[in-house]
């Protein structure tokens, strides 16, 4: 079973040379720590950065330079700053190659719910609805089951949707799964020490298990 850093590490393997990547808040943010040093990748932050760098050294924080999570960050050489219209313009025009974000629920046809729990204070969708509606490649990083022990990989989302038919891949503490175009979670890899049976038990939506399922190579 993976911890948060393990999930991030596994997702980092999906990041390829030359990609522009948008990382959501939470586990996705950790992915940046596992991108190999020699790889050419640029991080987009939807408040208006391309080429976002790590947190600043202590004492070098700039109130005018934050990321979409409102954290102080830095810029790398070759970075650029732009306004929010251009930022979401480039997201809609699919210039960002890969979007990694968290979710509360994903359905077997790729719907995602990650912004609202009825009855609880709703903070808003931020840029998530724009990202999931436009991105050509969306990977969800999340726990396989919620705190109540219920599967978050469902036949149909119960929570209000953020976007429909958009999730391509899911990485959880238990497994890597692909969402098939015709529907269904295809099991690709098991987390170290996790059995296929455990994954079957934790998956409420249609799970497709074909052939031998290899353990992740981290």
């Amino acid at each position, binding site marked *: 079973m993976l911890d948060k850093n393990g999930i991030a590490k596994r997702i980092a393997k999906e990041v390829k040379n030359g990609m522009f990547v948008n990382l959501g808040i939470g586990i996705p943010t950790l992915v940046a720590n596992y991108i190999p040093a020699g790889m050419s990748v640029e991080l987009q*932050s*939807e*408040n*208006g*950065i391309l080429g976002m760098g*790590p*947190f*600043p*050294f*202590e*004492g*070098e*924080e*700039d*109130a*005018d*330079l*934050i*990321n979409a*999570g*409102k*954290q*102080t*960050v830095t*810029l790398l050489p070759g970075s650029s*700053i*732009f*306004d*929010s*219209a251009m*930022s*979401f*313009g480039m*997201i*809609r025009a*699919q210039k960002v190659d890969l979007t990694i974000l968290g979710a509360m629920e994903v359905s077997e046809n790729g*719907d995602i719910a990650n912004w609202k729990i009825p009855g609880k*204070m*709703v*903070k*808003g*969708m*931020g*840029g*998530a*609805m*724009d990202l999931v*509606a*436009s991105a050509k490649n969306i990977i969800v990083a999340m726990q396989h089951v919620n705190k109540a022990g219920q599967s978050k990989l469902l036949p149909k989302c119960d929570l*209000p*949707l*953020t*976007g*429909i*038919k958009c999730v391509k891949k899911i990485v959880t503490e238990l497994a890597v799964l692909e969402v098939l175009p015709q529907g269904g979670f295809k099991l690709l890899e098991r987390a170290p020490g996790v059995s296929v049976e455990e994954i079957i038990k934790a998956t409420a939506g249609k799970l497709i298990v074909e052939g031998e399922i290899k353990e992740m190579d981290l």
Partner: protein
Amino acid sequence: MINRVVKNAEEALKGVKDNQTIMFGGFGLCGIPENSITQLIKMGTKGITAISNNAGVDDFGLGLLLQTKQIKKMISSYVGENDEFERQMLSGELEVELIPQGTLATRCLAAAYGMPVIYTPAGVGTEVSIGKEVRRFAFNGEEKEYLMEKAFEADFAIVKAWKGDTAGNLIFKSTARNFNPMMAMAGKITIAEVEQLVPAGQLDPDHIHTPGIYVHRIFQGENYEKRIEQRTVRKRN
């Protein structure tokens, strides 16, 4: 050169009345018009419909106007980090319209560029699409559904820039740019406060983010706090 300079926040905000729609630039606490917010509190303007990506924190930014109950409605994409906001929203005192961040930005752009509506896929198949025109378009070899979203109409836009000149031209610094340029272009009357006001001719025309034609009143702000919402750092090794 058409001079757009006014003396201070007081003069800049003249004519702002109760029950108007005001755009506020900024993302989180970054690039917000601090002086103008303070002035609105002094003026006690009520019933504001605020178009702003966020709602500040309890004791800073738009959170200050929530404490004084001057805001009737927020149109935002994300409103966490604010207890008083939550209280007013749950009690029904405050009306809240949550819309996708890109939709917020693009509805500003639509107003700025004289486009009455735009189409975006954001929110298709979600509750955001309720009551909106859904239309299929093919674009770059992919056919999908889009929502029709309307250009904002705002009585005032209040933005914060780093540098500005007497002609109203604006230059933003780093991610304090965010929504400021589009809102500056989208307001019926646009008010800009700047950290540095310089004579016309000192800014390189190629570096200007917002041309002065969009900025009706500009003033030199003072005492900027520029509070950091999430101070994240790494250690030197």
